[in-house]
């Protein structure tokens, strides 16, 4: 089946089986292997990408459903010479050990900081109608869809807090 995907600002015409997930299309058809396959069932967050600016699990959607949508992967957040603020902060705070979950963590955190900026509440927000503050508790709750089997969580939270705080 024919589909044209817009990934990191570039259009790609693909002829794919309709069963192909967006994750597999990115990795196996476009060689964008920064996005990782962990559980392939939406439980680990390693496959997180941005779809029209919103973070989603790319393993739980079909590529053929996304003609014309703006897809951003970790490769689209920066260049090797100029890291995104979150990428730089993950390096500075050692926000990983093996690194496998890191692209998903960084894409998820990128989307999450936009959600905070838009005033979206979370499960741990006391006042549903007030603008949420970027506390460590808020970061942990909002990032709960990204697992790190090395358990680098304290440093991941530090990295996100630095960028989120600086952005405010």
């Amino acid at each position, binding site marked *: *089946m024919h589909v044209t995907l817009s990934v990191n600002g570039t259009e790609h015409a693909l002829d794919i*089986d*309709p*069963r192909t*997930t967006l994750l597999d299309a990115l990795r196996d058809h476009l060689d964008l292997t920064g996005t990782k396959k962990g559980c*392939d*069932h*939406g439980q680990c*967050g390693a496959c*997180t990408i941005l*779809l029209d600016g*919103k*973070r*989603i*699990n790319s393993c*739980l*959607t*079909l590529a*053929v*459903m996304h003609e014309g949508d703006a897809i951003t992967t970790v490769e689209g957040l920066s260049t090797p010479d100029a890291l995104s603020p979150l990428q730089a902060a993950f390096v500075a705070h050692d926000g990983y050990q093996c690194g496998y979950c890191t692209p998903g963590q960084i894409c*998820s955190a990128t*989307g*999450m900081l936009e*959600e905070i900026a*838009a*005033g*979206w*509440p*979370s*499960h741990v*927000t006391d006042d*549903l*109608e007030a603008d949420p503050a970027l506390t460590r508790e808020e970061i*942990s*709750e*909002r*990032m*709960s*869809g*990204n697992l790190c089997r090395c358990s680098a969580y304290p440093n991941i939270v530090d990295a996100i807090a630095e960028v989120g705080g600086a952005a405010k």
Partner: protein
Amino acid sequence: MRAFDYQRPESAEAATRAQSGAEARFIAGGTNLLDLMKLEIETPRTLIDISRLPLDGIAPTEAGGFSIGALVTNAALAADPSVRRLYPVLSRALLAGASGQLRNKATTGGNLLQRTRCYYFYNPATPCNKREPGSGCSAIGGHTRIHAILGTSPHCIATHPSDMAVAMMALEAEVEILGPDGQTRTIPLADLYRLPGDTPHIETSLAPGDLITAVILPPPPPGRQLYRKVRDRASYAFALVSVAAIIAMENGRISAARLAFGGLAPMPWRDREVEALLIGEAPSPALFAAAADRLLATARTEDGNAFKSPLARRTLASVLATACAGNS
């Protein structure tokens, strides 16, 4: 995943006609359906993509409530300013469910129709009356930590996993359905779901081709709204027990009460007798215990889920105490 024919109809009417054929499924967010298709628990021959239909708005109704399009994402609904202000129990329930990524994709209609997370339903190697009617229930006598204690049958003890639907049950939401004949009908949310009985594979009252187009919220009822969820980890886990409560007080007595429960039953569970028992009474531990007695009068437990009776009892008492204190 089994091969399927992918279609993207241009209208809701065309979608319902396409789905009324055999072995077709609608797909919107896909977060539950694709998971099940990968495991070949769902094996549709035709997948009808409704994700681009114009059903993603939240609009006030003439009655003073809100109409929520079936394709509104869980994230958008939880963050909607009117929902946060007027229906906080709904925002709270949504925010207690899933993860940020899943809430950005999962839709209102899909959340209502998500399947149970029963371990045995998810494991094609084990018998399951929901997956293979007549094959037996592996949960009964098996591992039952997440299973139901109310509304079950000897054929199935699976729970409905939604948080959102529990809040909507307390809010007395209605479901707007477009049929393949082009007619729209509206039914109470409670009538969408069916208890397992001896046909646990039939979970809703929807007929082939029926498409949920919206959820209608009546005007917000008086009283304080609360959602409390108890689970095995602090985030990103299904409810062991959850309670949606809307409680109003007058002169130190409970004047209105609505309670709905998650994690306990095959559908979001509401028991009007429990609510009636509270009306006109002054809050007290004895009253809350009596309410729990009534709620759990028909409970049937297994070794692995017997803890849910005392857990539901304590959670209900805590929620009622908080709700009543917030009103005085």
